């Protein structure tokens, strides 16, 4: 630490020769000069380090002791400054550099999303672009609360959004909900309506009046459990109509149509093994090729690896280093064999069934057949499944009552 301080103020190494060098040292002391590192240099001569500001006072002392003094080395910031004082372009360059860095920091150069599981970062960034929140906007124009509100409205899966501006990064923190099913709207009276055409297998009503029963076929929109409840008096007469939140579990048999087509002929890529790597710099929208191009292959795959440059974690710059990998391949036309294509079709069907099962759907029958017709292979059929159906529909005061009355009168 001490060294830094001394270097900052500047010091000089001088050589003192003469008989009276010790007297010189004592005099330095008396005049309170800052000296250190006194070493014998040769016969009857010593070198010592002395602070720059004290060197002027040495002239008088030299006369008094009649020693010869030579400056051997100069260290420190004041000397460097003197050397570069006249280099105006150098100082200009520093000024320009600092201005550029400061100006760059006024814009947003990186938007990243954290905490997203189902929603891809891409979707969110594209959605933000519609709201004019994008790469290259002024930091001042970022309005956190309006962005949060927009995202919450746009994506119904998001339960919590928080937008943070760090350096030149716009970080969007998200928490998604895992399909909890019914939203808790217990206070409002509602019906349960069918959300897909189904054949009712079982219905268990916990609240409300059931309007359908086992074995009945319903269409989309049919009211299955009504929120209207009759209140009967002692003598069995209709006294009042009350509206509650209908709650029931209805299982129905649903049919999912499935169809998929594939060509028997396909184009196979044979990688020849030749590869090439190219590097480019991208500043904003302009690219600058560094090495590796042009590519002479006729057909090739490109894998691009973008890396954005940044200083100190949060200060992103609109400069990208892109590494392109080119892999050459030759195309050849081939035909699937019967076994191959059947396996591919089956795999796809299994995936579809798996997706249904993950949602809680129980598959009863699988009527899908695979047929090869000339150049194409078609798989078509129906999948019969049992799943929970039903969706809540809020009763609007007038509508609900009318609908209810109609049903009753029938």
């Amino acid at each position, binding site marked *: 630490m001490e060294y830094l301080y001394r270097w900052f103020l500047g010091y000089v190494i001088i050589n003192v020769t003469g008989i009276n060098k010790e007297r010189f040292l004592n005099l330095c*002391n008396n005049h309170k000069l800052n000296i*250190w*590192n*006194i*070493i*014998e240099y040769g016969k*009857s001569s010593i070198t010592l380090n002395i602070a720059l500001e004290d060197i002027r006072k040495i002239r008088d002392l030299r006369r008094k002791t009649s020693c010869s003094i030579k400056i051997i080395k100069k260290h420190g910031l004041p000397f460097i400054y003197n050397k570069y004082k006249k280099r105006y372009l150098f100082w200009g360059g520093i000024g320009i550099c600092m201005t550029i860095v400061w100006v760059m920091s006024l814009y947003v150069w990186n938007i990243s999303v954290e905490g997203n599981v189902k929603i891809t970062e891409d979707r969110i960034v594209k959605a933000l672009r519609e709201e004019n929140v994008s790469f290259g906007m002024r930091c001042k124009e970022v309005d956190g609360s309006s962005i949060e509100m927009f995202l919450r409205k746009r994506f119904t899966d998001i339960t919590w959004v928080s937008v943070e501006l760090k350096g030149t990064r716009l970080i969007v923190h998200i928490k998604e909900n895992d399909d909890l099913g019914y939203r808790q709207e217990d206070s409002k009276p509602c019906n349960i309506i069918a959300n897909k055409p189904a054949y009712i297998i079982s219905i268990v009503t916990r609240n409300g009046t059931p309007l359908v029963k086992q074995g009945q076929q319903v269409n989309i929109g049919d009211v299955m459990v009504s929120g209207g409840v009759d209140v009967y008096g002692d003598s069995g007469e209709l006294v009042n109509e009350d509206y509650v939140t209908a709650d029931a579990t209805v299982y129905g048999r649903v049919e999912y149509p499935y169809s998929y087509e594939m060509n028997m002929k396909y184009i196979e890529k044979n990688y020849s093994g030749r590869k090439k790597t190219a590097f480019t710099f991208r500043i904003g929208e302009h690219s600058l090729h560094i090495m590796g191009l042009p590519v002479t292959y006729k057909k090739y795959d490109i894998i691009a690896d973008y890396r954005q440059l940044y200083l100190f974690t949060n200060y992103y710059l609109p400069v990208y280093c892109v590494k392109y990998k080119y892999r050459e391949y030759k195309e050849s036309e081939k035909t699937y064999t019967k076994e191959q294509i059947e396996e591919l079709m089956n795999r796809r069907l299994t995936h579809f069934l798996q997706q249904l099962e993950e949602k809680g759907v129980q598959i009863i029958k699988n009527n899908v057949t695979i047929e090869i017709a000339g150049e194409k292979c078609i798989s078509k059929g129906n999948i019969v499944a049992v799943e929970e159906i039903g969706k809540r529909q809020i009763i609007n005061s007038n509508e609900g009552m009318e609908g209810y009355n109609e049903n009753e009168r029938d």
Partner: protein
Amino acid sequence: MNSVVDSLNLPRDVFYGAPLLHITGKYEGIIENYKSIIEYDENNLILNTKDGKIKITGDSIKIEYFNESDMKIKGNLKEIVLL
């Protein structure tokens, strides 16, 4: 005066102006309360103090820093003689 200082065990460097020497092994030492340097070269350092002289003999003695009140020396110290 001397007996008062001695019997009360008062610090002698304050009352007598005696020099203080802190020596760390054969390698370095800090000397306080001296008056001036009489002689200095690589092998000898003679200091003048209120109470007498100190002569330090050794190899490649160098003075790290040097104030009115204290100084620090480094090197291979061989002899310290209080004259």
